[in-house]
């Protein structure tokens, strides 16, 4: 059995209802859990971008990627390992203000982790941190040791590739050239 790694899938789709369902169904069918998911507009008008992370071996993630790309309204799907991407996530930590005031070590921990405090009121304070997964989790663990965390949440991953251009743009350019040839301009 191949070793499991955390893979990041970047999926681009047309803006048609129900695509997320189709993408997640590819995971469900194989009983692979999605670790995190972020959906947003992409830099290309009308194209949505899905950033999905999942633990898998390479053989399986290749098949998952192909099955996702096979969906009619999916423009492109690729999988990456962490070293091929710039990755950011964010974490929000809601702390008891009283605890923060009582224990100066908490403030020092927040500074040491390069996080910022974005809200303070008499009952609670909100700390926010951007970064890679490990750093966000490590701040949580550090704060949790003080027993001051009221709530904690971590966002889905967002990522851009290390290449110059997104592969999807190249693909769409080629496709648009072929539509000009077929005289079917503007059709999705």
């Amino acid at each position: 059995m191949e070793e499991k790694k955390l893979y990041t899938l970047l999926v681009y789709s047309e803006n048609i209802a129900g695509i997320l369902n189709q993408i997640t169904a590819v995971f469900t069918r194989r009983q692979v859990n999605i670790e995190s998911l972020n959906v947003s507009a992409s830099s290309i008008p009308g194209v949505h971008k899905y950033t999905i992370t999942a633990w898998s071996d390479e053989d399986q993630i290749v098949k998952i990627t192909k099955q996702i790309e096979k969906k009619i309204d999916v423009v492109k799907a690729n999988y990456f390992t962490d070293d091929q991407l710039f990755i950011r996530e964010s974490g929000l930590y809601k702390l008891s203000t009283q605890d923060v005031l009582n224990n100066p070590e908490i403030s020092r921990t927040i500074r040491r982790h390069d996080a910022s405090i974005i809200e303070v009121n008499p009952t609670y304070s909100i700390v926010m941190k951007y970064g890679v997964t490990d750093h966000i989790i490590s701040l949580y663990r550090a704060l949790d040791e003080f027993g001051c965390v009221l709530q904690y949440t971590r966002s889905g991953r967002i990522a851009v590739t290390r290449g110059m251009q997104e592969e999807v743009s190249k693909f769409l350019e080629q496709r648009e050239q072929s539509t000009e040839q077929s005289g079917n301009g503007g059709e999705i």
Partner: protein
Amino acid sequence: MITGSEALMRALQNEGVETIFGYPGGSIMPVYDALYDYTRGPQKAFDHILVRHEQGATHAAEGYARVTGRVGVALVTSGPGATNTLTGVADAMLDSTPIVVIAGQVPIGALGTDAFQEVDLVGVAQPISKWSYQIRHAEDIAWAVSRAFYIARSGRPGPVVLDFPKNAQTEMVVFKPRHVDFVRSYVAYPELDHDAVARAATLINQARKPLALVGQGVELGNAQEELRHFLEKADIPAGRTMLGLSALPSNHPLNVGMLGMHGNYAPNLKEQECDVLIAIGMRFSDRVTGNLKTYARQAKVIHLDIDRSEIDKNVRTDVAVVADCKESLPALTALIQKGDHSEWRQSFLPLAELERQKVIEPAIHPANGPLLMGEVVNAVAELSPDDTILVTDVGQNQLFATRYFKYHHQRSICTSGGLGTMGYGMPAAIGATFGAPNRTVCCFMGDGGFQMCIEELGTIMEQQAPVKMILLNNHYLGNVRQWQDMFWQRRKSFTRMMNPCYELIAQGYGIPYQAVTERRCLRDAVSKMLSSPGPYIMECAILEDDDVMPMTPPGMSVSDMMLEPGV
């Protein structure tokens, strides 16, 4: 301005639809009202075939699509009408059959309210269809219908589901015909990679023991002739998958038989000996490969397929050529040298002879005892015209029929290969008679499958659809019974079946019927059935514990194929 329902009629006309298999209901009534005028009088554009169950509509559409190469159409209502089509949709997905299912839906204002006969059809159909889409407003009809037909028929074909809410059926719209032949996110015909073709040609030119595996992709790409040129130039023996059986005529000298669990002995064993395996429009189904860990490990694998996701899915390839085989086969033929593999081909013969003696002869020419399925199939194959279409249900009837039928003509087989849908046969045969009205359609069914869509006898009666039904009755769910006998210590758990009097059933539907219980009456009965103009039921009393052989036991290697049960 016309209604959305009439716009649907125009859109279907625009796609060249001639035959619709359907069943009306509440949420599709506006469409059926429009259809009334389009099926009679000066405006007549379609034949509408009223089926007896929506599953039947989808299988009929599949049968129609298989024999014509065109898109089959099913029209149903929402809720149960829609869910009844799902087996057919899944069947068409696994077997790459182009159908479009149009289902009524509650008005969009009522969606999500658990309205009467509301079901989230797009949601449930998505994982089992090539594309599912809800046409929410009448102005989307022209685009969505054209896109649906393009997606269903292009590339690797498949089923498309259109969910059509009632408000869109009644809204008024100015109909502008559309012709979709491009979807930017969907590459129907991948560009041929000439480097890959060259690498494949090198492997083939170096091969000493090449073996081709021919699948339905050849028929779907209309590349039967291109296949023959390729095989003949390279002198490569070819096995066919069950769905690819009529892609290469049975009597072609390079044809070495059917692949798979109950296929022919020689090609199965030779998969383990060949040095280059050339898979053409087939998907290495587990029914073909047996245990993947031991499958053809010695061979270099070349895979020609239009669907990129099939490459390396089950079997690792050395060279993949992702393209329409109509294009890739001639490109490959141009680069290969004229081959001579006569010695290699000769080596298939002793295995074929062994199978003939041990399995085939006893199955098709038994000396005594009750009738066997194989001999019935053989009699029909010998006495029916060369361009006869074989339709089967699923189970032993299917395995015997596909093994012993003869294929002379392209697009001659309708069978449920991937999903293995019992009940497929009868409605698919109805569809085939409408798709190919000038060809004989013979449908083999067991007593189990016959009863799974038995209601379609009503459609056959009403349409006088000339389906020659051959009911192979052994009072068992024979294939499961065979497995129970072979692998489950003969514990026949719920496989014996009490049957109705089929003669009375035939009588009830007014369909000519004949029982065959004795060997000496078989050929006359077949001739009588074939010369009778309309539908016909020939019921054969079959040996109860007839086993389909050879067989590769489940999970075993293709080289473990057994010629006799228990040996």
